[in-house]
């Protein structure tokens, strides 16, 4: 079954975790769907590498956090917040590619 992430998530957000990292939180609508995503490890480094066009070494971690029905992943910022040429000081608009993501469940 292929599902759109936007149809099964309640929250999809990005934010700085300090000036040198971007962190992404995906919080699912219910426990059943969260468990399916977690069981299949549907949010994984392959997906992140493809969506953000980054290499494995830029992924700091992927975490499934049961109490919040959430998946979190953190990547190295292409440029530190506020650096010359950097375009998103808070990192709050880097979630967009996740809105179009599809998962195989």
């Amino acid at each position: 079954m292929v599902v759109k992430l936007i149809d099964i998530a309640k929250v999809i957000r990005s934010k700085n975790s300090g000036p040198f990292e971007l962190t992404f939180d995906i919080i699912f609508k219910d426990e059943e769907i969260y468990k399916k995503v977690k069981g299949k490890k549907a949010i994984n480094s392959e997906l992140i590498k493809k969506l953000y066009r980054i290499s494995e070494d830029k992924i700091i971690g992927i975490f499934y956090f049961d109490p919040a029905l959430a998946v979190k992943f953190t990547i190295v910022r292409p440029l530190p917040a506020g650096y010359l040429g950097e375009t998103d000081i808070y990192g709050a608009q880097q979630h967009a590619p996740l809105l179009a993501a599809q998962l195989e469940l």
Partner: protein
Amino acid sequence: MEKVKILSPTAILGYGFPVKSFEAGLNKRPDVIAVDAGSVDPGPYYLGAGKSFTQRAAVKRDLYYMLKASAELKIPVLIGTAGGAGGRVHLMEVVEIIQELASENKLSFKMAVIDTEIDKEWLKEKVSHGKTKPLGNLPDLTVQEVEEAVRIVAQAGMEPFIKALEAGSQVIVAGRAFDPAVFAAYPVAQGFDVGLSLHLGKILECAAIATEPGSGSDCLMGEIDLEGFVVYPLNPERRATPLSVSAHSLYEKTSPFELHGPGGKLDLAQVNFQAVDDRTVRVTGTKFIKTPEYWLKIEGVKRVGFRAISIAGSRDPKFIENFREIALGVKKRVEDNFPELKGKYYLNFIPYGINGVMGELEPENKLSHEIGIVMDVVAEDKNTAEQILSFARSTMLHYGFPGRISTAGNLAFPFSPSDIPVGDVYNFSIHHLVEVDNPEILFPVEYFEVGG
């Protein structure tokens, strides 16, 4: 003491809160009011320029209610990361507001001021003895980086706050501080568990953001006992749920299972979030793991230059299609025209409508029917920045490109003047850890009798 009640009025001092929520919090008889006043999120400018991202009048408004409540209930008020960035100049601005409020409202109290700006000589010594290490993917700290930094602050832990509380201070204001420390200091001083106190602090630091619906400008109450803590909002329109509170444990940090701070880390792997009623959540199971050495996070910025920008738009499909080549061509023309300034300026175009938000992380590759362009120039001084910007702007306005039939001008400018001086630009140059022997000595606490 079996229980400590902590009132968090707002996510950032100056973001405001409804008076009704705050009064509902006071009716619960809190033992302490604590607030976080800053963040590194607005970028390097504020630490560098010595300014706050909050407005003085808004900070004064929030402090008015907090100081009045503190006087009436005879409870301490703790403020961390004063003035947004927590440098000495930021700290002194908040101290001045507090003194002003005390004299206007005839309040008198003992105030503790904790300076967390770092002495460069002390830090250079640490660097040369290998007592610093980078956070994330930064290079090792060098003596030169320390010298070039405009201002360096360290994130204080709970120790100086506890010291100030034990000295009987009613108002405690600190420079840069670990966000949860201002909330955790009082319960830890009363003997409550460090892990639970810091985790409660982590949730309280953004106030009602951890509720549904969330808000950074509304109050949140926390009550800690010997086995755990509860949090609940004071506005009847909000609810704290196991999901809203646990989701906040994720917020703005690398991992949901570990939260590193001064002297150790919080282990959240065994945490339990349970609904007490439909608006209150109980949390248990957080552990604090002390590190053998005591590491502090330090933040520093250096000045990069002066920025001037211009904002323009295009609605011409051929111009948009050729934008990358046009931008390169304009840069080339600027180089040709000012060979003597080579290497002395930075020129960049941010094309909104062509991956302006995500840059190299953008997976899409489609063109918009109109684009916005921000021309960004940074140079050592204002004159050079304005000179380069003016030339780049007029060159792009009249630049010839394949298929151009609109020969009157390529750009729509929404403003006159079209060129805007922005000010000094800074970069985060220090984001490291430093090992300290005694965190109390590093952060001197000064005491003042205010008012009276």
